């Protein structure tokens, strides 16, 4: 059993847990994830490690309630426990001194970008971060990102905070300003990551994205997480989750992520998590 030692509600559907998981806290690196299971009938849900405290033996998970399992998770309170956490999984981010690095976080993708930005800075890079959300209330990790970056830009779709527009608009401006960019790292909704890839492609700026296909085991056993990268099938859990954005076939990824929507609808209607999702 793994205990929730702290819970924060960041918005009605975004929650943050600090979980007691000493062995994982000791080992994990930026870019890695865990797979959790709430109870004996639970699904195996992959979640990125948004932060960790090696001394306290805790890891931070941040999640958006999108379906039955994440809704059920969101209802748990401080002091309660979940059955399983396996990890750390996936390959750590390649952190090295490169020059100027742009770290882009979209929506809750900002959480996993944060430890990467921090590590990039610690490695001696100049870190420019861009974080975006649909609206001001959905922005997360603003202070953390500010501390981890040399420059921070904020965008909202509706202009309620920062620059009105998308993270890609700011990225274009940075490139136009002839800023020499060593690497762009982007985590967020797949459409955003695809957008970032298209912006940097003509300039051949190395661009890395973290993919989140549907997973089961997370150890390379089921092949369910396969993604098309440069005309090859890769398993995101063991070959990734980070890949060269210019090689990724995003359309296939988007389609595969929708695979279980019809079934998940049934799950929600049957009361797991008690959600009202997918019903519109």
């Amino acid at each position, binding site marked *: 059993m793994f205990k929730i030692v702290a819970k924060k509600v960041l918005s009605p559907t975004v929650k943050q847990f600090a979980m007691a998981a000493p*062995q*994982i806290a000791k*080992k994990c690196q930026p870019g890695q994830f865990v797979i959790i*299971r709430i109870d004996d*009938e*639970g*699904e*195996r849900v992959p979640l990125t490690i948004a932060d960790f405290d090696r001394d306290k033996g805790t890891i931070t998970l941040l999640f958006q309630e999108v379906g*039955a*399992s994440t809704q059920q998770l969101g209802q748990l309170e401080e002091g309660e426990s979940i*059955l*399983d*956490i*396996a*990890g*750390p*999984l996936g390959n750590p981010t390649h952190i090295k001194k490169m020059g100027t690095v742009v770290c882009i976080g979209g929506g809750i993708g900002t959480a996993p970008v944060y430890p990467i930005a921090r590590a990039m800075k610690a490695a001696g890079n100049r870190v420019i971060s861009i974080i975006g959300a649909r609206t001001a209330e959905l922005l997360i990790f603003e202070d953390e990102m500010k501390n981890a970056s040399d420059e921070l830009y904020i965008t909202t779709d509706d202009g309620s905070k920062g620059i009105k527009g998308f993270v890609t608009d700011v990225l274009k401006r940075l490139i136009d300003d002839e800023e020499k960019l060593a690497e762009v790292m982007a985590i967020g909704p797949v459409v955003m990551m695809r957008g970032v890839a298209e912006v940097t492609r003509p300039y051949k700026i190395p661009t890395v994205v973290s993919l989140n296909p549907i997973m*089961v*085991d997370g*150890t*390379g*056993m*089921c*092949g*369910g997480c*396969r*993604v*098309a990268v440069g005309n090859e*099938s890769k398993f995101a859990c*063991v070959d990734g989750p980070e890949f060269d954005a210019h090689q990724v076939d995003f359309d*296939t990824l988007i*389609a*595969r992520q*929708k*695979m*279980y929507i019809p*079934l*998940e609808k*049934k*799950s929600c209607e*049957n009361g*797991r998590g008690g959600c009202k999702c997918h019903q519109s």
Partner: protein
Amino acid sequence: MSPVMKKHAMPEQDPKVRAKNFNEVTLGYGEDTALAEAQRCLHCKTAPCRQGCPVEVNIPEFIQHIKDGQMDEAIKSLKSYNSLPAVCGRVCPQEEQCEKHCVLAKKGESVGIGRLERYAADYAREHGETVTAPQRKANAQKVAVIGAGPAGLTAAGDLAKLGYAVTIFEALHAPGGVLMYGIPEFRLPKAIVQQEISNLKKLGVVIEVNAIIGRTYTIDELLDEEGFEAVFIGTGAGLPHFLQIPGENLNGVYSANEFLTRCNLMKAYQFPKAATPIKVGHKVAVVGGGNVAMDAARTALRLGAEESYIVYRRSETEMPARLEEVHHAKEEGVQFRLLTNPLEVVGKDSWVTGLRCMKMELGEPDASGRRRPVEIAGSEFTLDVDVVIMAIGQGPNPLIQSTTKGLDTNKRGNIIADEETGQTSRLGIFAGGDIVTGAATVILAMGAGKKAAVAIDKYLQEKRQ
């Protein structure tokens, strides 16, 4: 008195009924039948049957005990060779192993060795078998076993019996390996696997689940920081192969591992009570001809598919699946599309709508000694299906090899280990089972676990001196 030339039949669920449920297909011998079947054994002095058994179970001996009604003795004899008889009695390819060599097979049918093994094991389980914890050595050395499949479970059990302090590290949330996530409930009830595992715990073996070696710990950390003095790697062949044909990333294409894991380990057949979904489809094509393919095709029927096809590029004679499983699959209504090779998964709006195939004929034997399938020009056709399951084999998972320096592997990525001892290229690290041999059988994996336990004992004794 002329001997009974045929094996006593084993009662089974009616094919029509069982094709809709997950209960065990075969029901096991009753006492009378078991006794009658045991009577058929001639107790040959040479016991040719034993030579066919990878762990050389003393077959005439345990059958004699059944005959004499000494069930405790029967199970004791069996367990001294094979720690998972209830599993092996169900899933071993007996017709290729012990039973093939039985002298009765020459004139009629062999003794039903597997069925008797199962009978003895089930009897022991149902009559409350007792497991006593072995004496642990003073200052028992710690041994780490990686992977809780048949190889790891066997090695762990034998080492615990020898007095070592054994911890199994298992990546998934449940121990058992393929026995839990791969082989379906209707062939191997999960309660039996869990009982065997609870016996292991009674022997003092500690099982740490959710521990992925190469990630949660590396082997070197186990040795240098966690105080383990030897390691056994039994991580199996879990990495699924795909055909690398167009359309394989369409929605509705599964590896057999994913399909079976969702169903067996994650209990997707209880969805939405269990949280994990599975897309079953109306018409399902399973590509492959082994046990894994049969399991997937039969599982699809049980989950409600109207049509379930086996698509295999050679003929039935070359099919690697156990005869009994092929037979059961046919009875349940699985349709065989033999000499058929998939070319492309076709789809619409990112979902599978069919499997384009080519008819094949058999040509000259190839390197495997089997006649090579050759395409028949102009024979293309499309099978109308909405789910395609790839069951064309598995390779080694690279997590351990890539994080352990000096551990030699062959060009397929399997760990190189001595056949007799499991010794790898690194001192104190042993390996066995599918991770060494490539996908094989439960009993071979157990045999490797057994041999490695002996070798590890020897290594640790020498180390202590």
